[in-house]
């Protein structure tokens, strides 16, 4: 039987929304306060959903220890307490939460093989959230 397991993690990071393709005025008008050159930070809530057949021997879609250790090493340590703009991943793309969501999905899809990666959901604040399922429609 196929089930979907979601685990929530937290990390804090700073970013600045700025595109080199736009003029200073355009950046300011598109990104507003988020264009402040010194950046600003968020407590990001990251929800990762993995899916698969429940293993009859363990009762699990995947062992949480495997998911936790992968996420801690490959995502939380990489993005937590960093200025996202300084990271390799965001040298050519603006570290919006849309792009962060897609990036995190890519890290999981490439490196996590204990279950199928279904979806990534990131809350930038309690009022904004973003979801990405590799271009598929989000299942309700």
């Amino acid at each position: 039987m196929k089930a979907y397991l979601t685990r929530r993690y937290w990390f804090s990071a700073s970013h600045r929304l700025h595109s080199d393709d736009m003029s200073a005025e355009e950046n300011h008008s598109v990104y507003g306060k988020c264009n402040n050159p010194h950046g600003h930070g968020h407590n990001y809530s990251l929800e990762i959903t993995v899916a698969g057949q429940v293993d009859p021997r363990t009762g699990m879609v995947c062992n949480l220890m495997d998911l936790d250790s992968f996420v801690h090493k490959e995502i939380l340590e990489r993005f937590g307490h960093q200025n996202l703009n300084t990271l390799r991943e965001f040298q050519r793309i603006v570290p919006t939460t849309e792009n962060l969501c897609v990036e995190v999905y890519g890290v999981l899809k490439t490196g996590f093989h204990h279950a199928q990666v279904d979806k990534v959901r990131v809350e930038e604040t309690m009022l904004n959230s973003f979801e990405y399922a590799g271009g598929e429609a989000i299942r309700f």
Partner: protein
Amino acid sequence: MVYLTRKAEFSASHYYHNPEFTPEENQRIFGKCNNPHGHGHNYTLEVTVRGNVDQRSGFVVDLKELKDIMNREVIDAMDHRFLNKEVADFKDRIPTTENLAISIWQRLNSKLNLAELHRVRVYETPDLFVDYYGEA
């Protein structure tokens, strides 16, 4: 088609153990969850049903009826219980959150006549939940 979600809470204890594994395997795979005396959680259950809105009542489903079924089939059976020892569903099945969601689906699906069961979501903690949609 409208989707309606009803929440309920229950508290229960469990532990993870497969008698086919050696003690070392059980410990390695299940870690702290393998403690035979069990440990507990405050579970939150979300049951989502879907259906057309009845013209006369304006309801997808009579919430009182849904609540009664959830109470009878799930809460009365599982609240303040040691799932491994007191709930028959887990006699031969490890009471992981995955299996809990599947078991709750099976308990509810046969009892719901008015609307179609869409999703069972079980939160083991606010940071860990499982969704089951009745898929094989």
